[in-house]
């Protein structure tokens, strides 16, 4: 019985490439990974947004209206609904002068209880230290 932690670190802007989208869809895929593993074994994902990647977390993304594709906002809310740990880098929020109000901090509108956390980069670094594997997107 073991839990392996994988940290998904998102540093890319959304939409132009699918890097951040694939980070979220792969992190969410942790929900079904048990089918490949022994009883009691599992994978625990942590999602962290750093650098330009914090701009994935802006509210009111209308990608479905404008282009007919699921927004990163929707994926992020789904992650919170599934109780994934979501961290957003405090220093980068500050660098871009973004208010907490402008960010996707919860998924209450779809029944989610888990909230995103704005934390210093040093906290994200600690998550990387305690993770078994790291994936930068």
């Amino acid at each position, binding site marked *: 019985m073991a839990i*392996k932690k994988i940290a998904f670190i998102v540093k890319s802007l959304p939409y132009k*490439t699918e*890097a951040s989208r*694939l980070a979220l869809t792969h992190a969410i895929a942790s929900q079904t*990974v048990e089918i*490949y593993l022994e009883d009691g074994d599992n*994978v625990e994902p942590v999602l962290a947004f750093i650098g330009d990647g914090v701009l994935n977390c802006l509210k009111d993304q209308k990608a479905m209206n404008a282009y007919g594709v699921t927004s990163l906002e929707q994926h992020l809310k789904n992650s919170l609904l599934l109780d994934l740990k979501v961290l957003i880098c405090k220093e980068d929020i500050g660098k871009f002068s973004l208010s907490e109000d402008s960010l996707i901090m919860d998924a209450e509108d779809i029944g989610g209880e888990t909230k995103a956390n704005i934390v210093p980069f040093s906290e994200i670094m600690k998550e990387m230290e305690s993770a*078994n594997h*790291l994936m930068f*997107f």
Partner: protein
Amino acid sequence: MAKLTIGVFSSLVGSLSLDFAVKLADAAVKKGHSVDFWVSGNATMLSKKEQRAFKDYSALQKTLQELMKTGNFQATACEACAEARGYHKEDTMEGFQRHSMDWYLASGFSADRVLHIGGD
């Protein structure tokens, strides 16, 4: 020996990241390690069968198929990413598996190291 999982994501064909990933897998297998090789996003292009060899592109099908024969290398493409690009089962290179994204995480579970090659 140890297990390495390599995940390759964005646009492979036409980029030497493709060659990097395959050469690294080859070197690891030759040293007796086992390698799981996951392609997702645009990198699922690698799984398309019958890629024609040109001097402007790396031609890696042969190397991949030799790696598969060793029994210490398995290559898997993200099924949804492939279907979205019009790569169906019958379009897939022989020996290349197709699974959903959880396969990559499961491979990471038992891997000693995971090298995730993201990028644009």
